[in-house]
């Protein structure tokens, strides 16, 4: 039986420093471990971590994300990745051979891309790449945004949740780690998938979620 998680808020004591070590979203002071964030208390090995319940996307190298082109120059694109900072996609990091000054022929303002975070430096300058298999420009469909911290729930354990949504709606779905989700199919399917994802977002931390989502998906409307 899973233990009911407990909510932490900044400055709350979440553990004893003699028994645990301070993990993500915590700090130690005077033998006690305190939370710095609003989130759920998570004990893993001998660490206490806080799993945030709100907040912006924090880009990590290797994350697959959905970006929106927000500016174009001769040698690169500036991409909104739903983080506090825009990311840079250089012409050398795309799967096409781009002649100087032809950047907008390949990706235009407001286009959507599936890309990977290549690098994040100390001042949070972010570099993207599209040079790996499976990374491409997104065409058609719909893009919705959810809180980035809810992404793991939408995917589910070993991808079970997202597979179920795909199965019942007949949609192609790509989940970006940055909280953007691309859904393609007929409008009924897209609407149903959207409703299911919104429900997961709202009830992400409750028990029996999979069963309730399946019920929603089985429903005709």
């Amino acid at each position, binding site marked *: 039986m899973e233990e009911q998680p407990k909510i932490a808020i900044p400055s709350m004591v979440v553990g004893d420093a003699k028994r645990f070590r301070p993990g993500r979203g915590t700090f130690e002071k005077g033998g006690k471990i305190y939370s710095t964030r609003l989130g759920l208390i998570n004990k893993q090995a001998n660490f206490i971590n806080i799993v945030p319940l709100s907040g912006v996307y924090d880009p990590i190298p290797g994350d697959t994300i959905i970006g*929106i*082109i927000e500016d174009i120059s001769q040698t690169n694109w500036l991409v909104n990745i*739903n983080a*506090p900072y825009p990311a840079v996609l250089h012409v050398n990091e795309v799967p096409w051979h781009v002649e100087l000054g032809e950047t907008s022929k390949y990706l*235009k303002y*407001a286009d*959507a891309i599936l890309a990977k975070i290549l690098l994040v430096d100390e001042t949070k300058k972010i570099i993207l790449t599209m040079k790996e298999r499976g990374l491409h420009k*997104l065409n058609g469909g719909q893009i919705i945004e959810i809180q980035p911290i809810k992404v793991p729930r939408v995917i589910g354990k070993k991808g079970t949740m997202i597979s179920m949504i795909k199965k019942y709606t007949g949609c192609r779905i790509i989940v970006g780690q940055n909280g953007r989700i691309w859904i393609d199919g007929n409008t009924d399917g897209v609407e149903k998938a959207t409703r299911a994802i919104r429900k997961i977002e709202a009830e992400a931390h409750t028990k029996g979620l999979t069963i309730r989502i399946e019920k929603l998906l089985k429903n005709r409307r």
Partner: protein
Amino acid sequence: MSSSVVPSIKKDFIYKLISEGKRIDGRAFDEYRSIKIETGLIRKAEGSAKVKIGNTQVLVGIKMDVGEPYPDSPDMGVLTTSAELIPLASPDFEAGPPGKEAIELARVVDRGIRESEIIQLDKLCIEPGEKVWIMFIDIHVLDQDGNLFDASLLASLAALYTSTVPAERFELGENFKLPLSKDPPISCTSVKLNNAIVIDPVLDEEEIADARLTVATDKKGDIRAMQKGLSGSFTIEEVKKIIKASIINGKKLREVLNKSIRG
């Protein structure tokens, strides 16, 4: 959220929905969102009201002062309407003096109220040519999810109808209810999207709309004010259709308003 750029995919999808007769939030084209009106929230104001249309929230407060009339209307009270699109309400609103959007909003609300002559400004004269009541309608947008025009006019009306003139504070006799006539104009806003007309747009729709039309109608169904906005255009048939829909929805909004100010 830092996304002020709307992905083309999102726009195309809303267009696709529209072409199938659907909207992004599941409403029919001529269906208004649910409305909630609360009055008398602000103690320091002579009257106040908060209107919620879906997720959009607008708070209006009425303040009154004593001052000089305009030379061309020496026996009439003075009305001033201002709007602030404060950065609290949207990641895209910036601090600073009112911009074009805020000024248009304030002027459209002002016209709706002034031209319909619901405020009996002649009864707000204290001494002709010398002293009259000066009235301020201040529109404070709290949460922006589309259709600020209708929310702002509704909130202004609900605030006016529950206002008291603070005569005692100025040693001018007893406080009295703000003199208003009974039939206010109610506005209804529609936008044109992919050649379809939808009423009461949410922000997602407003952001990609081609043209907007706000129509204020009175109890009889007569037209009392209009404002067309955005860079797209309407056909004559579309304008007629919007006006007819505004008369029908105006009646419904009027009922909600009347209920909120009766108490």
